[in-house]
């Protein structure tokens, strides 16, 4: 941090001012002039929180994607199919057993199993052939999409939100003060906060697992140079299978999350594949913190965009991607 300030004093100043302005926007009572210019504070706060919580969902999908890419240099374009598959499994389990939590566990296991099969039956046979792997994953994603359309049809499915998560909660953030002097606090859907908290926990757990455990050390070594790692006697194929299973399982969990606060239907697979591609391109391919940063940026851009410039909201995310590719093609937090 101190090094960064020393090296780029101008940038550091801009960042500090931006953070200060943001904090002021979040915590201060907006003067009437500002409300007249850019709308009510409630709308702004909601958009920011929505962006961050949506970023949580994007992170869940993109972290698996980036993990698999980082270790195996495998651009798994069937990742969106794993997301949708996990969602459908979660839906089936939650309607069958009525348990929301259980649907996460089963969706994780089911998607992870598909991941293991993919790795063993397909990718292992074409290791190191990037183009071939990419083409195969595109093909697989089309096959999966049609299979799921066959089984589940074109209907919209929603994973049932448990009753204790329905409805809004009051956050300690002031949106306005009534003329009677009574403060008005922000109401926010509880389920989104819970899901965001869960994705933060998962993110931190992944970071700890990668940076503080032996298996994480092996994975990091594999990212850097897998030939040398294999030469030291590590069973690299087993590591590949494990990482693939974890990445696929995360996509499965994300499917249940997406099915809870959005909905599942054909076409969601490609949408989330695209979202995770954009997220990892912005954040940096193969980097977990990069995926987190990218996810929050894209989530915020989508939500703030949909409120303040609805006409061009779709373009904003791609503009960000274009700018990042132009200025820092390796992504914001990539090491190389």
């Amino acid at each position, binding site marked *: 941090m101190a090094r960064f300030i020393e090296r780029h004093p101008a940038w550091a100043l801009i960042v500090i001012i931006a953070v200060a302005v943001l904090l002021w926007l979040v915590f201060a009572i907006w003067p009437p002039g500002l409300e007249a210019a850019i*709308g009510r504070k*409630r*709308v702004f706060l*909601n*958009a920011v929180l*929505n*962006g961050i*919580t*949506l970023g949580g969902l994007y992170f869940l999908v993109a972290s698996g994607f980036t993990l698999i890419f980082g270790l195996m240099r495998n651009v798994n374009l069937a990742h969106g199919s794993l997301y949708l598959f996990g969602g459908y499994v979660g*839906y089936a389990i939650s309607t069958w057993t009525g348990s929301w939590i259980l649907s996460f566990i089963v969706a994780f296991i089911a998607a992870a199993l598909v991941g293991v099969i993919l790795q063993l039956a397909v990718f292992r046979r074409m290791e190191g052939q990037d183009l071939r792997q990419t083409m195969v994953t595109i093909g697989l994603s089309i096959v999966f999409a049609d299979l799921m359309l066959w089984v589940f*049809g*074109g*209907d*919209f*499915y*929603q*994973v*049932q*939100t448990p009753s204790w998560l*329905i*409805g*809004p909660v009051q956050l300690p953030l002031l949106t306005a003060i009534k003329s009677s002097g009574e403060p008005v606090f922000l*109401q*926010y*859907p*509880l*389920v*989104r906060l819970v899901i965001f908290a869960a994705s933060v926990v998962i993110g931190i757990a992944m970071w700890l697992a990668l940076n503080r455990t032996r298996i994480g050390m092996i994975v990091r070594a594999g990212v850097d140079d897998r030939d040398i790692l294999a030469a030291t006697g590590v069973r690299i194929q087993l590591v590949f299978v494990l990482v693939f299973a974890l990445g696929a399982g995360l996509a499965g969990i994300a499917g249940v999350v997406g099915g809870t*606060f*959005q*909905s599942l*239907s*054909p*076409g969601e697979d490609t*949408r989330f594949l695209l979202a995770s591609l954009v997220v990892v391109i912005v954040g940096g391919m193969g980097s977990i913190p990069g995926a987190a940063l990218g996810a929050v940026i894209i989530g915020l851009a*989508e*939500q*703030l965009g*949909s*409120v303040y410039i*609805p*006409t061009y*909201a*779709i373009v904003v995310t791609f503009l960000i991607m274009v700018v990042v590719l132009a200025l820092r093609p390796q992504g914001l937090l990539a090491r190389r």
Partner: protein
Amino acid sequence: MLKGSLGLIALSSLLLSGTAFAQEKIKVGVTATLEGTYTVLGEDGMRGHQTALNVLGKKIGDKELEFVVASTDATPDSAVRAVRKLIEQDKVQILLSPLSGDEGIAVKNFAKTHPELTFVNAASGAQETTYVDPAPNFFRYNMDGAQWQVGLGKYAYETKGYRKIATVGEDYSFIYTQVFGLVLEFCGAGGQVTNRQWVPLGTKDFASVIAALPDDVDAIYLGLGGADAVNFLNQYQQAGGKAHLMGGSIMIDQTILSSKGSAKNALIGTIAASGQADTWEDPGWQKFVKAYQDSFPESKRFPSPSLLATNYYGSTMALILALRQVNGDLSNNQAKLKDALAKIEIDAPNGKIKLDANRQAIGTNFVTEVVDDGKGALFSKVVKVIPNVNQTLGYDPAVFAKIGLPSRTVPECKKY
């Protein structure tokens, strides 16, 4: 040599016997949104199409209809691509296309480049398609989005007592047309539309849109469809939304009312208007519902046909009946068929339909209210039936022309 000539003889006898036995086919291309946000709508449209074939049969005199289906995703370019593929690759002679508003405008324009073929609109409902520079070979047997809203504005103002409303709609031509119809009538009655929000087709996260909804209105009008509608309702419930709702024609429709999950329950009591009502007593409608239910197993259909099924049924019916009138004669650039299509009056399930000079349907409209049938299934209940709704909504054509074309801001909220 011998072998070769033998083969030739065998081949030619095969060909000869082929022509002797094969019936002459009339090839019809059908498009539906079988991908993307509107998948469910496309699927049910195809069910309506299939129901029509089950009821009416595929025979035209001594010829037989053959259908080739192509999928689109509600974007205009996907529709044109599908239609072009059907014409150039599959050599279809007639098109039953498309489903969605923007697609309709694009296909209508494309129809002009093939004046020799016949285009029967399947279900699309943007006003511009038949109102502005219509194609002489494009026929629409369903009403447009504005016609489908007739009656709603007055009902909301006079019976429900709503004075101020806000709208949320998908950002494309069909919803513009729907809001056009609503605003014209509601503001004409004296109401106010304070805020119109537009979201891109395919929006998944509505949380910010919901947060930006105004508090000081009596009701919120939702012009959403397919996955967008379900997502909105889901998140609206999670955010604890409690306002009165009003619905567009594809919002209050079996495609949404039959969705899985509890989000749809937010719609109970919502008022809407559409080209059909699920519980209409009319025997023709009941017969159609029965035919639809009998055509598919219960798990593969909705409890009652959606607006899309009804539209596809109506357009397929019009095409088959017109073809039978001319005995399948497609000579002279299908002139006889086009003539018959322009004149035909059909007894569609949702009321009598005839075409105006622009080949646009004049038909019956329904104001509805969503009810629970007691077993958890939701239906739209008839409140009011309005016959003979034309494209200018009863306005003098000169006055109607001055209002302008439906868009994000047109019409203004005033009495025309």
